């Protein structure tokens, strides 16, 4: 298909599939959602729409070395405590404590399920899961994703691999499925479903990565670069309400190579030090809790050191003995194998030399921060029939692997409750035709078209976001005027998206990925503009409003009008369910 | 040519069907047929083979090689055996002329008829001076010398 050039829309076959529950995105949350659905009701038709191949798709493609949230009851951990901790990590929030609680309650179940499925989890002498940190447990998760995928398939979910979702099917107010195209077979897919769960992961590649200057390593990112926020974008285009996008996640990564630092620092107690050899957290952040400081402080710390002339910054791996160093790298092989290769390619012995660290580009990831869809306790978004789980669902941060999986199951439960009540309305062919036209437009323009190649636009967007909307090269700092400027450019790009062309189906996918990124970026900037304060330095550093504004102790929400395309930003109040000092975990 | 060093290995696939001989235009002038020569080789009677007069009758027409059901390269072997014979001085007397001829070419790259004549003459012991003189005269009359 990709070989021959299609000139005419009618040449493209349309595949219409009817199902009960559609799951967009077969990652962690998606697989769990499917499994839950089929176990609750085996007769249910469950369809997973997966852009890649389910066995190695999404953020877990390379594997995982730890499940960051597990409650050791024997250590007196409770869902409440986890939520408190999570709230404190967010500098006191606001977070959706109702969501976080419901999630925390089934967290252990989910993890135990994973072990039963064949995920090796390290146990300590007591036969309990071995902790490394307060909630982290070590796993040997090289096969984590394949295991999840197999279970979802065994359960009997229909998997559409290599089908990229492009838009939701909307019937009046309600979502009745989604549309997309086959990245391999080039067909146009219309999947009609009583209920739809969006679990497409977060948004990566909105900003320029600090490592992109090197050829062949544009995707040196922390988040999976193939998660481009399609889930958010589809919701935004459909007029769904988004929350807290301004909570941009930035991670501390090893320099030059986006390797994980938490594993090293949290898991193995190698502290962050600066060029002068001072322990950064103790020196600069004692007032907010030192090593225990809220996450955004930690994540922003290294970049601040650079900014204030105390770079370079390191994690001090010299405290490790060779045995630990080996264990450490074994863990890394599970999560980011090439980081181990990277160390080898520097030829350094980490027990003798510390590993350099640096900030990453900002991401929108609802599994880590609170950004994403605004959902009810049943995980239904503001669009009836559309549910969100994992990184896609906002409000409850620090979900990570276990939490996202659990939320997949919760979303399914919500969806099952919903789809009992509804039936499928007849298809609206006008909407389908219009979308088909939109989807294949870049492809029909063909490779010879005098227009814009998706990669060009992607890089343009990433640079402008980096410079105007507080990217890593600007040390995450921003101000009103720059954000307005960013918005101006994004609008221009959105106009010029008409000029995107694609020679192959893969390029067509890239084209839609960049279009999706534009939607997310636009709304994101609106959020950043609205929060005229600096509540989470690093994630959201307003040079023009450096202080916390108590009036903004609330959720910032946005809705984009599907007709006019103009974005309305408003707030929702924060409800504290778990009493006590919000900043104490 | 490989065979020159060792003509033997290739001959064992021969099944003695005799097609080489029956197809051979000259075999019947000879006491040996090509089949027999090959047989000698199979039996390790190298000298018999090497001395066989057939070798020098063979016209290299390849009829045998073409007809052989076992792909034995009969003609090639005959050629090889000739060289053998020469190396091992099995070559029969009346071949001296070719030798002289060969040596001359090797030495000078050309033939001097006079010298060839003389050497030839010397080979004939006892000498026949009168006949030679007459022959010489005739040749000179016709401008051959």
């Amino acid at each position, binding site marked *: 298909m990709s070989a021959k050039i299609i000139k005419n829309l009618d040449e493209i076959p349309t595949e219409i599939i009817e199902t009960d529950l559609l799951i967009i995105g077969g990652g962690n949350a998606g697989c769990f959602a499917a499994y839950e659905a089929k176990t609750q009701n085996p007769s249910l038709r469950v369809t997973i729409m997966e852009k890649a191949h389910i066995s190695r798709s999404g953020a877990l493609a390379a594997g995982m070395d730890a499940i960051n949230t597990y409650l050791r009851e024997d250590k007196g951990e409770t869902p409440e405590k986890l939520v408190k901790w999570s709230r404190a990590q967010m500098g006191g929030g606001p977070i959706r404590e109702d969501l976080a609680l419901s999630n925390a309650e089934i967290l252990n179940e989910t993890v135990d399920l994973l072990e039963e499925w064949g995920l090796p989890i390290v146990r300590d002498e007591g036969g309990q899961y071995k902790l490394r940190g307060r909630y982290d447990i070590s796993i040997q998760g090289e096969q984590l994703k394949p295991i999840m995928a197999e279970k979802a*398939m*065994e359960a009997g979910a229909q998997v559409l691999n290599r089908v990229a979702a492009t838009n939701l099917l909307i019937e009046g107010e309600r979502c009745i499925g989604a549309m997309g195209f086959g990245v391999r077979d080039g067909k146009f897919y219309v999947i009609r479903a009583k209920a739809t769960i969006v679990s497409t992961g977060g948004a990566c590649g909105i900003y320029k990565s600090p490592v992109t200057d090197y050829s062949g390593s544009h995707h040196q990112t922390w988040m999976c670069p193939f998660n481009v926020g399609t889930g958010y974008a589809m919701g935004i285009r459909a007029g769904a309400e988004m929350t807290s996008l301004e909570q941009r996640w930035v991670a501390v990564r090893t320099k030059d190579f986006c390797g994980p630092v938490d594993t090293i620092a949290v898991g193995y107690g190698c502290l962050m030090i600066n060029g002068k050899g001072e322990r950064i957290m103790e020196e600069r952040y004692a007032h907010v809790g030192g090593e225990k400081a809220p996450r955004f402080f930690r994540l922003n710390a290294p970049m601040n050191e650079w900014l204030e002339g105390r770079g370079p910054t390191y994690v001090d791996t010299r405290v490790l003995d060779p045995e630990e160093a080996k264990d450490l790298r074994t863990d890394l092989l599970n999560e980011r194998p090439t980081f181990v290769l990277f160390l080898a390619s520097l030829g350094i012995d980490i027990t003798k030399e510390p590993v350099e660290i640096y900030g990453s580009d900002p991401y929108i990831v609802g599994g880590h921060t609170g950004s994403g869809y605004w959902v009810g306790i049943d995980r239904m978004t503001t669009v009836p029939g559309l549910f969100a789980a994992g990184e896609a669902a906002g409000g409850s941060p620090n979900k990570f692997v276990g939490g996202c999986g659990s939320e997949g199951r919760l979303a399914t439960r919500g969806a099952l409750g919903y789809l009992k009540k509804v039936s499928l309305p007849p298809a609206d062919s006008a909407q389908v035709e219009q979308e088909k036209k939109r989807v294949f437009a870049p492809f029909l323009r063909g490779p010879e078209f005098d227009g814009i190649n998706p990669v060009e636009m992607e890089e343009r967007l990433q640079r402008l976001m980096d410079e105007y909307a507080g990217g890593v090269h600007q040390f995450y700092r921003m101000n009103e005027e720059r954000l307005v400027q960013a918005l101006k450019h994004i609008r221009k790009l959105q106009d010029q998206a008409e000029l995107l062309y694609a020679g192959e189906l893969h390029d067509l996918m890239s084209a839609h990925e960049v279009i999706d990124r534009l939607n997310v970026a636009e709304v994101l900037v609106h959020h950043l503009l609205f929060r005229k304060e600096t509540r989470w330095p690093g994630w959201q550093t307003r040079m023009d409003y450096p202080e916390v504004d108590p009036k903004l102790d609330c959720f910032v929400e946005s809705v984009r009008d599907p007709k006019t395309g103009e974005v309305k930003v408003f707030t929702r109040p924060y409800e504290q369910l778990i009493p006590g000092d919000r900043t104490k975990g | 040519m490989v065979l020159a060093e060792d003509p033997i290995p290739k001959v064992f696939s021969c099944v003695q069907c005799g*097609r*080489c001989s*029956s*197809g051979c235009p000259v075999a019947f002038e000879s006491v040996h047929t090509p089949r027999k020569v090959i047989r000698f080789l199979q039996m390790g009677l190298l000298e018999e083979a090497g001395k066989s007069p057939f070798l020098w009758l063979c016209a290299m027409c390849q009829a045998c090689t073409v*007809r052989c059901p076992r792909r034995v390269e009969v003609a090639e072997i005959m050629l090889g055996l000739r060289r053998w014979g020469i190396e091992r001085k099995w070559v029969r007397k009346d071949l001296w002329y070719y030798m002289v001829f060969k040596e001359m070419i090797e030495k000078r790259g050309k033939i001097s008829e006079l010298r060839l004549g003389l050497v030839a003459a010397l080979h004939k012991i006892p000498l026949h001076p009168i006949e030679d003189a007459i022959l010489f005269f005739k040749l000179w009359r016709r401008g051959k010398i």
Partner: protein
Amino acid sequence: MIPKVIPKVGIFIYDAGGRLSRAIDLAEVVQRLAKAKNVTRREVFNNLEAPDPISSIQEDLRAGRLNRILWVGRFPDARRRRIEGELTAAGLNPYLQEWCDLEEQGIGRGDFDRAVQAQKAIILIQMALARTRLLAPLMPLEIPAVDAALIIGGGVTGLHTAASLADLGKKVFLIEKESGVGGKVAALRRLYPLICDPHCGLEFALQKLEKSGRVEIHTLTRVKTLAGSPGNFSVRVEKQPRYVDEQKCIACGECITACPKEIQAGNTFPLAGDFSNRGQQVWNPNGLEKAIHQARPLAYPSTYVIERQHCPPECRECQKACPTRAVELEQTASELEFKAGAVLIATGWDPYPLTRVEEYGYGVYPNVVTNLEMEHISEEPPDLQEVGFIQCAGSRDERYLNYCSSVCCSITLKQVLHLKEKRPGVRCYIFYQDIRTSGFDEELYQRVKSLDQVIFIRGDPATVKPEENGRLRVRAEDTFSGKELDLHLDLLVLAGGMVPSEGSRELAHLLKLPQNSYGFFEAHLPCHPEESQRTGIRAGGACRGPMNVVHSIESGHRAAFDVLPFLSGTVRLEPTYPVLNLTKCDKCKRCMEECPYASFYFDGNGFPVPDLAKCRQCGNCVGSCPLFAVSLGHFTVQQVASQIQAIKSGFLGKEEPVVLAFLCKNDAYPAAKGAAESGLPIPPNVFFIKVPCAGSINNAFIADALGFGIDGVLIAGCQDDQCHYVKGNQLVKTRKENLAEKLQKMVIEPQRVRFESLEIRDSRRYVDLVTSYIAELKKMGPNPFKT
């Protein structure tokens, strides 16, 4: 999803006559197994005949205290079968029992330290235990099947085989491409050694199958497609029109008289090349016949056939003449479908086209003829003085046919005898390389030898030259006397060879049946002639290779015998067939490619599915899968992996190498077993796992072994081309090579993986092999993954 059953394993160690306790401390072994997971009972007993333990085990089984049994030790086969029976009676699936013979692994062999032997024994038991935990109950499969056979080819083989199958009460569909049955044999005039008429044998077969009424004969018919699987093939055939209604035609001959069109008689006997007509004119005075004529080669069915291409336009004479309205000039080709449990191929042979052997001038000189033509000439020979026969004309000749057709010598002798009967005065020259009259055919040879004026000349002519008087000049060397002969012959007969009949290649392609380099249908191995590579499809007769009539018929029957299991109404399958884990399968089709029996097909979603009836359960698919998603019923990937994981590679200390051997159950395993039985010292460093075929070893197993620090992996399979499953050993070798290259990259000695061919009685060699390998590994140093 299937409910999870918690395994409850009972380990029973049979210390036959204290043999085990002499070698190892059983008490310690049992005590070491105390902590083993999922084990509810562990006992040592030394009297098999005492009611215990069997009865108590039966109780435990019934009470659900046990659901898997691991027998350790050496059991007499008969006793073993009885135990299986007794426990099956107690409700235990036979596949939930595991047998772990410590002695065949070398326990109690050679004078090795008791403690070391005990440790090895424990590891062996733990390996078996790990496997036992993962055992699953299996049920044999029964597939309903058709009790009809399809026979392709109505020659002497096809007819006789059909008749015999009909006798057995099987329905037979027999299809023949010619207009009548009989094949080549019908074209012969005499059969040796009796010099009798072959038609009587054919007639006999025909009457037999007439009587049975269970044989459907379809002439002018060829196979178009074959679908389905053994026991349930469905075959589509195409039937060419004969323009005469077989039901109505009474073969009265009116039409023939009426027919205005005379044509050259076709192959009443087969002729090579384009000279058939000439052959007719010269040797067959009435070489003409009508466009409508009898079926041939044998006028059975006894109805006529019209060669439409010869009919004059608009001519309907035959139709007018026919008293029974049998002529139907509007007939067209039709398609039929048969359901058959098995397919027999008896497509026979064709004469080698002697026109290719240019030096003998066949087709150029009218009086150079083939031995088949001679069949008829010798029947009514013209006036002849000197006749030459050239044996191996084009045969045993690298330029043409490299094999011996095995019948030509006898045929020539037969023809000489026959000719001399009719024309005693004829002088015959027989040019030959060797006269091959094996068995009783020797008698023929002696009879001919006793005749005078028959000269055997050991030596073949090279060329044939014509003479003015129409005779042939042939020169040959009599290799005995070395004398040159110069002969003048009236007739030269070329004894040409046999080649697979026309259309064999197409058929082979259609049935996916392998052919040998000469195009004859392949038998599997000398030791397994019964195994064609396509289950339920067998070739018999001359399409398997040159053979005479007797052997053809026998071969046909043999073939029929081998496919009988698929003609019995049900196909029974052992439950150890391959199972694919579709959640892992990536549709890469490697299993499909590497299956020696082409038993995989695609399901609706493009997943490969094994056709269980075709499958021989060799497990080559298990080895082929890069995602190890294929397992055999009683040989699952997880079972093997668990066994490997149970091996403690360090149990002899880091320096002392440990070898894991994968032994093919056909040859290598018996060799190892034999080694133990003949008391050879088997070093404690080696553990073996029995596999269905070397080809069933997945590289992942080797990776596991190396990962767990095992120093060397020995793969023992059959000799090349001797693999019971055709090519398992080649497959595993190529996989191993591929892995070796990777190991090199990983800075691991590729010698740590080794393939060896073992023959079934190579016991001594097995021991030497293992011992030397261990020494070699010791030099190499420990596997870097060993801890």
